């Protein structure tokens, strides 16, 4: 338990122990401050999130984990600008987030490719919309192909979503987001609908890309292994209604990480146990408790 305590810090402790230069700036790259959101329902307003505070440094990979219905996706949607916080707000690079934009590209849970466009055209739609003034046609084509190559989709780029597997669709979904050159990449349970083997494969791809591009990533997940394997920080959320950040776990495993080696790694397993304890001891699902 004592070893684990070293890695586990609450959000307030985290700022105290942050590296010196980051404390000096005190303004994180991406900051959620006192974010609360209420949804109107027939029985009156429903408070989904209450006082969510989060600071994320540039290039960090953050996972948000929690039981279903705890408002993980809501946090992501607020950062994306798709939902508006009732109180509080999000600051990205010194500017307040108030509408969706390609600087915060979203990878949706069910890939959300437009079924009437081929993989290439799906990426093209985004690239055209964002870079039409900055790139020539040839540059756009090269950029789209380069990105599809990144996730090994070059062989099937002119196929339609209905003609490829779930894993391939999600690859294209990720590439569409990456091709926007976002400052923050938002992923909403990106591997949730995939089988275990495909999921592992895609997780490796994401880690590989992440080590190249050094994106800032927020990923929603309900998979403990996935969270520990991919993240620099795991944000654990309490159960809703009025969910908030329960604990933040810093994962200080060496990169590149290898899932096979880590399987027997004591540190890895300690992190894993810590998240499991949070989820199944402290935040048992209301239905179970």
């Amino acid at each position, binding site marked *: 338990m004592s070893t684990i305590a070293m890695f586990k810090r609450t959000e307030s402790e985290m700022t105290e122990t942050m590296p010196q230069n980051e404390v000096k700036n005190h303004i994180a790259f991406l900051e959620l401050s006192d974010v609360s959101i209420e949804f109107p329902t027939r029985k009156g307003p429903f408070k989904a999130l209450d006082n969510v505070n989060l600071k994320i440094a540039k290039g960090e990979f953050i996972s948000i984990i929690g039981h279903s219905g705890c408002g993980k996706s809501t946090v992501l949607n607020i950062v994306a600008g798709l939902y508006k916080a009732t109180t509080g707000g999000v600051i990205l690079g010194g500017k307040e987030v108030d509408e969706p*934009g390609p600087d915060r590209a*979203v990878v949706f849970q069910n890939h959300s490719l*437009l079924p009437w466009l081929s993989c290439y055209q799906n990426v093209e739609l*985004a690239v055209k919309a964002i870079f039409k003034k900055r790139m020539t046609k040839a540059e756009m084509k090269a950029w789209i192909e380069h990105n599809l190559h990144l996730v090994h989709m070059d062989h099937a780029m002119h196929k339609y979503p209905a003609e490829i597997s779930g894993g391939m669709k999600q690859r294209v979904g990720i590439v569409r987001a990456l091709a926007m050159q976002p400052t923050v990449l938002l992923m909403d349970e990106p591997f949730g609908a995939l089988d275990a083997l495909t999921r592992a494969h895609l997780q490796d791809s994401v880690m590989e890309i992440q080590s190249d591009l050094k994106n800032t990533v927020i990923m929603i997940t309900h998979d403990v292994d996935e969270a520990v394997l991919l993240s620099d920080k795991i944000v654990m959320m309490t159960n809703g209604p009025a969910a908030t950040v329960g604990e933040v776990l810093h994962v200080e495993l060496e990169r590149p990480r290898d899932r096979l080696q880590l399987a027997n790694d004591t540190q890895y397993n300690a992190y894993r146990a810590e998240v499991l304890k949070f989820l199944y001891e402290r935040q048992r699902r209301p239905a179970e408790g």
Partner: protein
Amino acid sequence: MKNTIINYLEMAGMSWLVPVVRLSAGENPREQISEMFTGIGLPIIALVAFLLLWAGAASEVKTSLGVLPGPIAVWEQGENLWQEYKAERIKEQAFYERQDVRNKKKLEKNPDAEIKVRDYTGRVTFIDQIWTSLITVFTGFVIASLIAIPVGVVCGLSRNMYGAISPLIQIFKPVSPLAWLPIVTMVVSAVYVSDNPMFEKSFINSAITVTLCSLWPTLINTAMAVSSIDKDLINVGRVIRLSWVTQIFKIAIPASLPMIFTGLRISLGIGWMVLIAAEMLAQNPGLGKFVWDEFQNGSSDSLARIMFAVLTIGMIGFLLDWIMIALQRVLSHDKNSCH
């Protein structure tokens, strides 16, 4: 090669021909023959049974115009109608030839002579009426679609707009086309005044009546489709900040195309039914008028001719629907939605 043919057949909605292609390619004959039996054999058996039943029952019914015609009598009248059409065309050709010769002679005598070119005004045959009806239904349907799809998209995007228009739709949708007809006729005669009209008034009356009735299914389906587009697809558009015009043309319309097409199919079907009734009631040229004229005519052939017209109306309705399905398969991404 085989697969391309099969693909085209399926695109064209003629999947019953697929086993024939497979069989000729020597693919598992037993299975293909059983497929052919369900796809081709059974419909033929049903058709023959219907014809026999018809022939048997018809001879028992004595009307004031004689015995109700059976399939053979109807077929003969069909041939007669075709012969009449051909005879009419020959007469027409002869008329124009005579006119040409006459005019040439006149010009030979005096190059400055005034020549008259008259249109042939012969009898309107069955085939001409088919064309009139088809052109009318198509015009009415196109006008209706050009109104219904944009209005439907707007209604689907804006709940306020839909709320505003919804009561109007609910009230006008159930109105019978024939109730519209007197109003349309009066308005058209009052408004469409021209010395040299491009279209006949009767044509405009029929087309507008078709429009009024085939607006609603397309409008409602489009509005429903647009308002129920997967939210994530809309969010994709929001994240890449598409302008609302691009959002509509690149996301909203393609996403709703399958349902819009279902609406269009229903609209065209209703339009075709409405047109025949309107033509009968208003004596506007077309198949409806043909049926009514034959009924008034009351010759011994009339019933057989009317029956042939009824079957033709049915066949054309079927053909129109089939064309819409084929169009849908080509244009829409959801290839499974058309049955």
